[in-house]
């Protein structure tokens, strides 16, 4: 697992829902470490999900603090079996993904989420996240459900100035 590389769409692993992890063993710890290293190796990467490195385990890593506009965040997190338990509000923001290079789109997400997961020692935790960090968490959990941000495009890029609605 020392030489992970990024799987790109249309690699089918990206559209496959992942399998929950039962018991954290050495290979899973190594995978998480390697994913953190790979995330760090890409300057603007704030999260990485296992399918992006070819694994169908329900595992993701994220670190919203890396981003300049991050706002309130919990720094580096390893997420074992994460689920978005509750969502509140809505926001639209531009996203990109290492698995779909050169594409960005306006994506609609919840503004605030309650995320439940276990850490790398298997201890369950829950965190309220908001703004940028909430977007990252939703993007990564989507990966674990076999969904990509292009499945959630909210509007066309020109929509910053929506053509007038007439009556």
């Amino acid at each position, binding site marked *: 697992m020392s030489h992970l590389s990024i799987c790109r769409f*249309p690699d089918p692993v990206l559209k496959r829902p992942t399998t929950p992890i039962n018991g954290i063993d050495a290979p899973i710890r190594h995978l998480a470490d390697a994913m953190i290293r790979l995330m760090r190796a890409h300057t603007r990467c704030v999260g990485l999900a296992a399918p992006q490195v070819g694994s169908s385990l329900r595992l993701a890593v994220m670190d919203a603090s890396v981003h300049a506009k991050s706002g309130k965040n919990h720094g580096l997190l390893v997420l074992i079996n994460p689920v978005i338990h509750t969502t509140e509000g809505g926001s639209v923001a531009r996203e990109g993904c290492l698995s779909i*290079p050169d594409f960005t*789109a306006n994506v609609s997400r919840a503004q605030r989420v309650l995320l439940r997961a276990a850490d790398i020692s298997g201890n369950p935790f829950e965190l309220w996240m908001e703004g940028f960090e909430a977007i990252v968490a939703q993007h990564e959990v989507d990966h674990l459900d076999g969904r990509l941000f*292009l499945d959630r*495009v*909210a509007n*066309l890029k020109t929509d910053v100035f*929506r053509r007038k*609605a*007439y009556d």
Partner: protein
Amino acid sequence: MSAMAKSSSKRWLVAAIGQDRPGIVAGVAEVLYQLGCNLEDSAMTRLEGEFTIMLIVSAPSSLSDERLQQAFAPLESRLRLAIHLKALSAYETRSPAKSLRPHIISVYGADRPGIVFRVTQLLAQARVNITDVQTHRAGGGKSGPSLYMLLLEVELPKPASTVKLEQSLKRLAGELDVEVSLRPTEANVL
């Protein structure tokens, strides 16, 4: 615009296409400004090396087709622009009806011929009107197959079932080996 202003002006669609270079927008805008025209709406973009302009302009009612045509002649030679003028009738100049349920359809997958045709053919048969289109292609070469994305803004006719439309889009997507989604448009709230 007031009803009075509208009744005393004519409207045109002006299309201009030319090899991209500085000064195209300024050149077209200057011609229209000198003639007393007002720019009502526009879409302008560069496709590869070609710059394209579409404008809706309102003009003083005294402006004739010939005069407008002639005013663009210097630009056609100086910037090598292809200009197309379409006078809009009173009927055509009516604003479109308030959008029936606006939706976004996104289609993406490995690029192959026929994606745009098959998807839009299905939509036309379902009487779904397309109001905006964005496409993007990237990748290819060593990094794998090139990816193609088609984003359509559409208006669904009243009786159309979103569920049914989505089902037929998914079926077609399976045939074309692409991903498709249909969602109501959401505005940017920044």
